[in-house]
């Protein structure tokens, strides 16, 4: 188990990591999700031992490893830029950690062939990395990380430099590869979509802090606060600040929306209401859905879905709806918010709807 206890990292007066505590179990896949500069790379470097924390400690399997340099920590790391030894063949690249560890030739051969098989590199073992495509170079880097049999494998946005489709392919294969070894996997990404596809656990990061950590679908469906909800949505979360007065939500300017039954138990106060774009639809999903009149700004069509950008009371919302819907710009349409998935956050940003649901 890898444990971070109140770890902080300050460089030149700037806090990169603030008071992070985390427990990662063996044979688990953990996603670090957050925008650029939120601290994902800094955190991974602390886990690896490439940097020392300014405060707090790092523990592995019950032993304090905070001062231990990275060479002695048994971690493997895969980077965004495909990093391989350019002058060695793919075979040698994958074998390198075992050679350094002094394993005997028969074992090296077996493990390399196994890793190559897993990552579909067997026909390329004799080539050098630079003669391969980007996807294959990254597979080589991943194979090398696996061959190391490290206790902790860190992947820092490994698919970001790959084509869209290649990314999809590799992403499908990765969970299988992860499941095979028993290591702790930590995967950093900026895309919520990727976190959902990978499964496992997710830690959402914002400005050097971990806002929530738990099973991915939990964090996605039941965020504890507004920051987590925002970090985890793509397209961006639709929000609006409303005042609850009895059975209606009000906003200056005459906006008056009915409060759905699910949120009726809240105290009368000002809340930030948030909901995912796919919980807004042009047709009424249920009798208690909240109807809203909004103005269309622009419609984007992907063939299977439509993203409709709407303006409502000074905020911009995105509606994600299946099928092709063509709306004219500046058209005012009726849309409905699904009440079962409306989230409410109080003034400090903490989720109220969560607490209501119990």
């Amino acid at each position, binding site marked *: 188990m890898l444990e971070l206890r109140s770890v902080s990292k300050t460089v030149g007066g700037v806090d990169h990591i603030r008071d992070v505590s985390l427990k990662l179990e063996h044979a688990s896949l953990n996603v670090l999700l957050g*925008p*650029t500069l939120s601290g994902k790379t800094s955190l991974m470097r602390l886990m690896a031992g490439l940097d020392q924390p300014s405060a707090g400690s790092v523990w592995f399997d019950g032993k304090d490893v905070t001062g231990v340099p990275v060479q002695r920590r048994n971690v493997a790391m895969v980077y965004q830029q495909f990093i391989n030894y350019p002058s060695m063949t793919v075979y040698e690249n994958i074998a390198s950690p075992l050679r350094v560890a002094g394993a005997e030739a028969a074992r090296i051969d077996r493990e390399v062939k196994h890793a190559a098989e897993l990552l579909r590199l067997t026909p390329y073992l004799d080539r050098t990395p630079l003669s391969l*495509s*980007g996807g294959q170079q990254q597979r080589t880097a991943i194979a090398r990380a696996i061959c190391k049999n490290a206790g902790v494998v860190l992947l820092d946005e490994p698919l970001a430099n790959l*084509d*869209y*489709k*290649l990314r*999809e392919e590799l992403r499908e294969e990765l969970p299988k590869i992860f499941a095979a070894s028993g290591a702790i996997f930590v995967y950093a990404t*900026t*895309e*919520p*979509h990727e976190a*959902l*596809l990978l*499964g496992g656990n997710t830690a959402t990061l914002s400005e050097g802090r971990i806002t929530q950590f738990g099973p991915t*679908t939990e964090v*996605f469906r039941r965020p504890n606060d507004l920051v987590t909800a925002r970090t985890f949505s*793509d*397209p*961006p979360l639709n929000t609006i600040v409303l005042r609850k007065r009895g059975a209606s939500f009000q906003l200056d300017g005459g906006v008056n929306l009915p409060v759905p039954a699910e949120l009726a138990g809240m105290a009368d106060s000002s809340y930030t209401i948030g909901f*995912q774009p*796919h919980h807004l639809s042009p047709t009424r999903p249920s009798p208690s859905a909240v109807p809203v009149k909004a103005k269309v*700004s*622009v419609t*984007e*069509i*992907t*063939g*299977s879905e439509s*993203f409709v*950008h709407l303006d409502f009371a000074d905020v911009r919302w*995105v509606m*994600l709806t*299946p099928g*092709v819907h063509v709306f004219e*710009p500046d058209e005012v349409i009726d849309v409905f918010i699904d009440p079962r998935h409306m989230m409410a956050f109080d003034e400090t940003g903490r989720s109220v709807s969560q607490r209501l649901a119990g």
Partner: protein
Amino acid sequence: MARIDLDHIRHSYLANPRSEQDYALKEVHHTFDDGGAYALLGPSGCGKTTLLNIISGLIHPSEGRLLFNDRDVTELSTQQRNIAQVFQFPVIYDTMTVYDNLAFPLRNRGVPEADVDRKVKEILDMTGLSDRAGKRARGLTADQKQKISLGRGLVRSDVNAILFDEPLTVIDPHMKWVLRSQLKQLHHRFGYTMVYVTHDQTEALTFANQVVVMYEGEIVQIGTPADLFARPKHTFVGYFIGSPGMNVMPVAVEGRTARIGAQTIALPGAPAAQAGSMELGIRPEFVKVGKEGMPVSVRRVEDIGRQKIVRASLEGREIAAILGEDEEVPAEPKVVFAPEGINLYASSWRVEMGA
């Protein structure tokens, strides 16, 4: 704005190309209409950036001509062609302020200062950079820098076309949404001819009226996003567009039915007899999981929030299906193919299925 004609253009990076393989861009003959929004979509190495650079003048094509509004511009330099290009990585002049960065292309062309001021203010407003106008361009974030790059392209009102080379690569997912819709609004408002190169199908499909799908230097299909989605002409288009891509499985066709393993599927029409291997293509969106139909074994269910992707196996073939957020996979899962989503392919090219 201009109409762009690509007249039998071919390009090879080698000095003496001999065979078809030596050409990075195989023959392209196409017209981009004035004021249209086009996307060049394809994987790495498919030739889309080569084509874009030929249009902008950074590459001189080995063969063929390029015309803007019927005027031959093949021999003209980039400056003379009057186009704007936005690159993958923000290209800004570090030592200048944001205002000066945007004014640069206009000042180089001797535009009077009053007009420069007006145009720059307009673009600052549009990209939301007004409050940073006087600041040095150096200390800004990646998306702000990319906005400046973009702004420099838009500030010239007389451009023939605006070309984008994977411009949102360095941008965070949240910002991507904002910038994409702004680009679309820009297109609505000003009617520029825009050509957008990307390998991301969401970007291509949301941005363009017409998408040009390329593979290994060739244009495979040109069509509207809806067309490409519903009626892909080649299995590659089916695979590349849509996430997950189209399910393709080999079938044996007999009259109005297709047979896969022990299962038969009714086709919406009778295709003409074809030689060559026949495949059936159906998008996961049209594969309905329920209690009736062909039995499948479910390998994995991926929950991506708004949908669930069901990865299953039908008669030994991998197949993906989409389930709604609140739906469940039944105990004995079976699938039905919605007829409007069935496509037939012979040797990877689409076959019409009659009536």
